[in-house]
């Protein structure tokens, strides 16, 4: 699978991953080999797009090409199928600071948001960021 397809699917509302035909585990984002067992017997599947925040950080000092977007909050989310992905929490910084470490463990759903690309990013047309939206408590 091409990396561009992964991000275009995300913009279209679908989180694409792979299911291993040998060990049954999931890999996301896609890879040439199963992230668990190394098998190439992989089937492209749509993931649930749900998971929980494992860790996060609000970045105040951004690299060239990203400064206009700062401050922003990068997080790692463990998807319900097992893989972890990197993206951003779509809350204002004040809200993130108020919630603090309590955000760890919070349930989220994943969607894609388009940003302008930058000179060193592999996709020269656009940059897509996986965004994490907090699911309301029930």
């Amino acid at each position, binding site marked *: 699978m091409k*990396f561009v397809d992964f*991000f275009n699917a995300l913009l279209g509302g679908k989180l694409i991953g792979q299911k291993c035909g040998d060990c049954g585990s999931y890999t996301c*984002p896609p890879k040439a080999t199963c*992230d668990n067992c190394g098998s190439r017997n992989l089937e492209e599947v749509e993931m649930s797009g749900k998971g929980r925040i*494992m*860790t*996060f*950080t*609000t*970045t*105040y*000092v*951004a*690299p*060239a*090409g*990203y*400064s206009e*977007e*700062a401050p*922003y909050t*990068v997080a*790692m989310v*463990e998807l319900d199928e097992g*893989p*972890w*992905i*990197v*993206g*951003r929490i779509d809350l204002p910084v004040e809200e993130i*600071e108020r919630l*603090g*470490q309590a955000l*760890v463990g919070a349930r989220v759903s994943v969607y894609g948001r388009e940003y302008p690309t930058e000179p*060193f*990013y*592999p996709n020269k047309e656009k*940059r*897509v*960021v*996986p965004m994490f939206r907090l699911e309301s408590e029930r």
Partner: protein
Amino acid sequence: MRDVAVLGVGMTKFGKHPDKSLVDLFAEAFFEAFEESNIELKDIQALYYGNFVGEMTDGSGNLSGFMADEIGLRGIPAIRYEGACASSSVAFREAVRAVAAGYYDIVAVGGSERLYTAGTEIGTRALATAVDGVYEITAGLTFPGVFALAARLYSKAYEIPLEELREMMAMVSVKNHRYGAINPKAQFYGKLGNLKVEDVLNSRMISSPLTLLDCCPMTDGGSAAIIAAADIAEDLVDTPVYVRGTGQSSAGGLFRQKGDIIRAIPRRKSSQMAFKEANMTPKDIDFVEIHDCFTIAEIIATEAMGFFEYGQGCYAVRDGVTSIDGDLPVNPDGGLIGKGHPVGATGVSQVYSVVKQLRGEFKENPVRDAETAMTDTLGGDFGTLVNIILSIHRR
């Protein structure tokens, strides 16, 4: 395989060098190493040079030939090694392997980098080329960000309240700045030697929960070493420092390593490889120069290398175990936080500090009775990991 030893070491002062090129910085460090090696230039058979982001900071690639030519080694094989912040440690290890295998007798190693002069925005982007270039950088993940993510994971996994952990992290900065302030080669020589925990906690937030003083600085600098087969070294210098073991390991993106990032599995593999080659255990190591790019990074490193149990490294800092008079002094030269971090030059600058200590020449902050020590250099988010064990004793 033959035994290998270090003949001489050199490093520039770390800090801001807008007036010196990558070549100038390497040459300055090289000649300091050369002067104490008791060899002639023609004895050097190859150059192993480390640089990470010359293209982005100086618009310069293909660097190794320019380095070799500058120091009068026209025509010798010269190779650039790139392993992010571990670039010159990778170069050093490959040089050791070539001499051990008998392919060369005497080679030069080193690195140079100019991140301070490049400025924060370009420097931050250049360093961020070491995260996954597709799936991590798109979110704007930076290196302070990587270790900020690790700090929160550490707090959660070991059930240490974040504020309590931050105080112990701050103690790493206080300690390393104390040592950097007395090291004449350090970026912060004469500065920040009397920091308090509150100063670290209250400095500017860079990537929560890491503040400016949780981070190593952007640095310009160069480092060098000359190594030789041990039998040759013993005829050339009074105090050869022997390379007893090396290790290296790799990893993919942070998201592939998942919760293991606080256990730094590649570092565990790399250090175990070095211990096995040296036929040693952590108990044989008198002190370490390790990759404290951020305060939490030093804590994670001491655990993964096997000096403390997972989740206990923070208490070792708090209890003074890693101070100069503790059981395991960590970063007596100030580490990356106090000494500075010219990334491609950092690994060999750690070798510099270890060699000076083992020869009894590190007068500013000596580790008492040190005979064997270890370096640890991390490239990227655990993508490249190198450990080197050095000793005044041949095996």
